């Protein structure tokens, strides 16, 4: 057994690999343990592969929806060759993974392959087909991530799958039931409907992407309706079974749906069983490791970041938490409290940062909201995609912008500007004074800030409301 490392990181997703790079950069002896391919869910089964496929779907959508009015002629009906798109996706992932290996090597990070489990604090057993070994470290950062949840009692075969399997379908199904209209469900619905799959989307709760601003959900419903994607909210799948070679789902609204395949997208569970947290006395709740804002677990020198702690389930949040954990492991006292923007890569895109209106109300913040429709934006009109809007939520007393919610072309890009405003507690009055480049989609943020002050210029004046007192 070798001398103890300064930091051992378990899991090489966007939380773990960023932590390992930071740790090595800060001069700590670092070991990174990964049971599969480097890059975690994000690079292998999440962000990057889905975005690679969505890029194809969006291009096809653009050609179909915008090319004709711009006089662009494509010989014949444009279609997708799924196997080509899949191969391109694999190439993208391969390049990214090679990039990671290159960085690990250049930074002198020891990469150990195998499944990690804790033997006691600071001591990790790594099992792999080549045998077992033990790794000792002064600090341990747990970053084993999460996996898609499955529904107990439903068949587990190639017809009832999660996003993990759907990303590698050899051929597209003719029809698909997606259970759960969260981020994954909505992105897959958008992707596959463009490629001609007959999609039915079922959500148990009352809106698309529960937890998102309700107006954004309604906006997305409108888009899906236009694209003939069938969906039901407030609806459960009561029963799922095989029927004459197809999967037949009975819904709580009495309808039945017969489809070739079923995609279960009801959420994610923590990858914590294999870690044997109990051996080190690490506390968890429903498998998610309990941490404080410093990413510390209840056991000294043991940290948990990313999906495993259940705080955000976002790649960029995991990375931010990884940096905090490393700095604290090496003597810092940092907290990870910055607001994390979130994105949905449907087309049009959806993004948000900060509080929803109802969250602000619950905290007793007096708010005012301003909504600016993309229809009134020069860039959106010129580009040819006027779907969506930006909503800015302002604190009426302090003028601070407490939340920004956007649906529209490039929303995931300009949300970065909004995140800066929310993080720095910028005032709506200041934003109204800032100069945003024209013509851009990001102008909608400034316009919505003005609308929240009830001083927007690019909308007709609101009708005066007068109350007798």
């Amino acid at each position, binding site marked *: 057994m070798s001398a103890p490392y300064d930091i051992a990181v378990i899991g090489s997703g966007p939380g773990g690999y960023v932590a390992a790079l930071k740790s090595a950069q800060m001069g700590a002896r670092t070991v990174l343990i990964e049971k599969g391919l480097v890059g975690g869910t994000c690079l292998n089964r999440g962000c990057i592969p889905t975005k690679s496929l969505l890029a194809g779907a969006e291009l096809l959508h653009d050609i179909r929806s915008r090319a004709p009015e711009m006089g662009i002629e494509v010989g014949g009906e444009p279609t997708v060759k799924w196997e080509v798109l899949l191969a391109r996706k694999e190439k993208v992932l391969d390049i990214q993974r090679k990039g990671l290996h290159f960085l690990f090597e250049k930074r002198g990070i020891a990469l150990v392959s195998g499944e990690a489990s804790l033997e006691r604090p600071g001591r990790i057993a790594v099992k792999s087909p080549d045998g077992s070994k033990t790794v000792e470290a002064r600090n341990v950062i747990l970053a084993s991530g999460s996996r898609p949840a499955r529904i107990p009692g439903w068949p587990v075969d190639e017809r009832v799958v999660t996003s993990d399997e759907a990303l590698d379908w050899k051929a597209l199904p003719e029809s698909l039931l997606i259970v759960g209209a969260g981020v994954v469900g909505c992105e897959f619905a958008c992707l596959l409907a463009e490629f001609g799959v007959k999609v039915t989307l079922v959500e148990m709760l009352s809106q698309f992407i529960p937890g998102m601003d309700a107006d954004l959900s309604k906006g997305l419903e409108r888009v899906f309706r236009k694209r003939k994607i069938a969906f039901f909210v407030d609806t459960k799948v009561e029963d799922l079974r095989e029927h004459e070679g197809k999967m037949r789902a009975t819904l709580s609204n009495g309808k039945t749906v017969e489809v070739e395949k079923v995609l279960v997208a009801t959420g994610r569970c923590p990858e914590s069983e294999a870690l044997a947290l109990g051996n080190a006395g690490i506390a968890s709740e429903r498998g998610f490791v309990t941490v404080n804002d410093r990413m510390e677990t209840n056991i000294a020198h043991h940290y948990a970041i990313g999906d495993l702690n259940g705080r955000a389930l976002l790649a960029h949040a995991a990375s931010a938490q990884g940096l905090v954990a490393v700095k604290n492991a090496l003597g810092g006292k940092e907290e990870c409290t910055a607001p994390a923007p979130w994105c949905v890569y449907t087309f049009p895109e959806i993004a948000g940062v900060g509080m929803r209106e109802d969250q602000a109300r619950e905290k007793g913040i*007096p708010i005012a909201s301003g909504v600016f429709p993309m229809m009134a934006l020069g860039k959106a009109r010129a580009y040819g995609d006027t779907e969506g809007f930006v909503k800015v939520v302002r604190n009426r007393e302090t003028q601070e912008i407490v939340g920004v919610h956007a649906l529209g072309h490039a929303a995931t890009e300009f949300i970065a500007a909004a995140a800066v405003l929310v993080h720095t507690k910028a005032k709506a009055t200041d934003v109204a004074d800032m100069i945003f480049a024209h013509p851009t989609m990001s102008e909608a943020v400034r316009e919505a800030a003005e609308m929240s002050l009830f001083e927007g210029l690019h909308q007709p004046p609101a009708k005066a409301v007068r*109350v007798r*007192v």
Partner: protein
Amino acid sequence: MRDTIQMPELPGEAPDGTIRRWLKREGDAVRAGDVIALVETERGVVELASEHDGALGAILVPAGKTAAPGTPLAELAAAGEGIPKAAPSPSAEKPAAPGARGVRPILMPKAGNDMEEGTLLRWAVAEGDQVKVGMVLFEIETDKATLEVESEFEGTLRRIVVKEGETVAVHTPLAYLADSEAALEAFLAAQGGEPGAVSQTEETGKAPAGGPQREVSTAVAAETAAATVLAGEGRVHASPAARKMAAEGGLDLGALAGRGSGPGGRILSGDLARAGAVSGTQPVAAKAQPAHKDPEGTVRKPMTPMRRAIARNLTQSAQTIPHFFMKTTVRAEHLEGMYRRLKPLIKVSFNDLLLAAVAHVMTHFPPFRCQVHGEEFLEFASCNIGMAVAVEDGLRVPVMMGVDKMTLVQLAQETKRVIQEARNGKSANAGKGTFTISNLGMTDTEEFTAIINPPESAILAVGKITDGVRVEQGEIRPARLLSVWLSSNHRVIDGITAARFLAELRKVLEAPEVLERNEE
């Protein structure tokens, strides 16, 4: 009949409204149908139009503040009746900007019952500026807080008479709004040419509607208009009682001509009694002239109001309170374990656990719930505990009210809020505590004693947790040890009481699970 204008029911999911702007000022005439204020809701701006003719009285909710439906926003005096603030006059239709005669002094506000003086930190406006209602005029520092003061009137700021950094008594004129330079000169001449010598006729630092302790912003202005009129007429208005008192005391009523607190500046007997305090309106921060030359590089610094308050209170405490001191050492393993367990769950701080433990014990020890006032004790039913919070250049002691009735979750939230407020210059519930905790556990201090914060009965000084050893059943074992010193006021607490309190506190700190039992 005097009526109030109330926040109406507003559209939107949260029915509260925020005053965006007052379109009428106190004293302005209002006709039925006139829009008097703009109110913001979640979705837009609502105009509040008056249902009646009349005149706007005191504004109770200033611009920028939020109020629920039914909250009185301002007083409205029916047409023909007296208006609470400004004297009704034929020109009420066209309100003269600064008060009658065109001059309105701006005074150091009295932003709290025991505020006697304030330091002008910063002018937000300059001579010649147009001042609007709600505009921040200046920032002051009292011994409790720093606050921004907004204007309640509009007009041209003609002259600033108190500069940044100067400390003056409350109600001292700081600047004047005036229509013209000439009007101001005439006004000052009528006052005897002494800007500082104006005795004000009216309490003008506005007590906010919500309650006595809100110190956010204080609208300020003065009505001294009538004074000049009468002074110019060469005749002195005074009540018979005042005349008698003046005659008996050999006082010259002329010195107060037109500046009494009665209607139109009429001198009342009380004004004579207060006449001595007129000098109190002079700047009180006289510059100390060094008797000899200071060595090179030496800087003389006046104390800030906060330092003066600390110096005054703690000197008085150290010199007059019969302190006695007692120490106990607590095994802190369980306390630390509980802290580590709860911190990620409910963001509780170590200090919160100390507060909860002290409150838990205090409920059984009435002397620790007492303030000492002269020969009287004030015993509170609940546990009001102060926390010493280090701030820039000093210390504030916000008080947590009713800690014994809070769950740890509530406590954790509330302490965070009041500590933040303290850092922003505001001490919550100052003067309402009976016990203070001074925690230096985050430093390298192992133990220390503290001076009681008067009129409280005791203070607990908490050091850091150290690694030590304890002998248990004849064996030396490592232990985590926390030493606390209790300073008690012997006027209310005897040695045996303090000893029992401390023993009880040690028990709770060593088995702190009892603090979680009320987490329902």
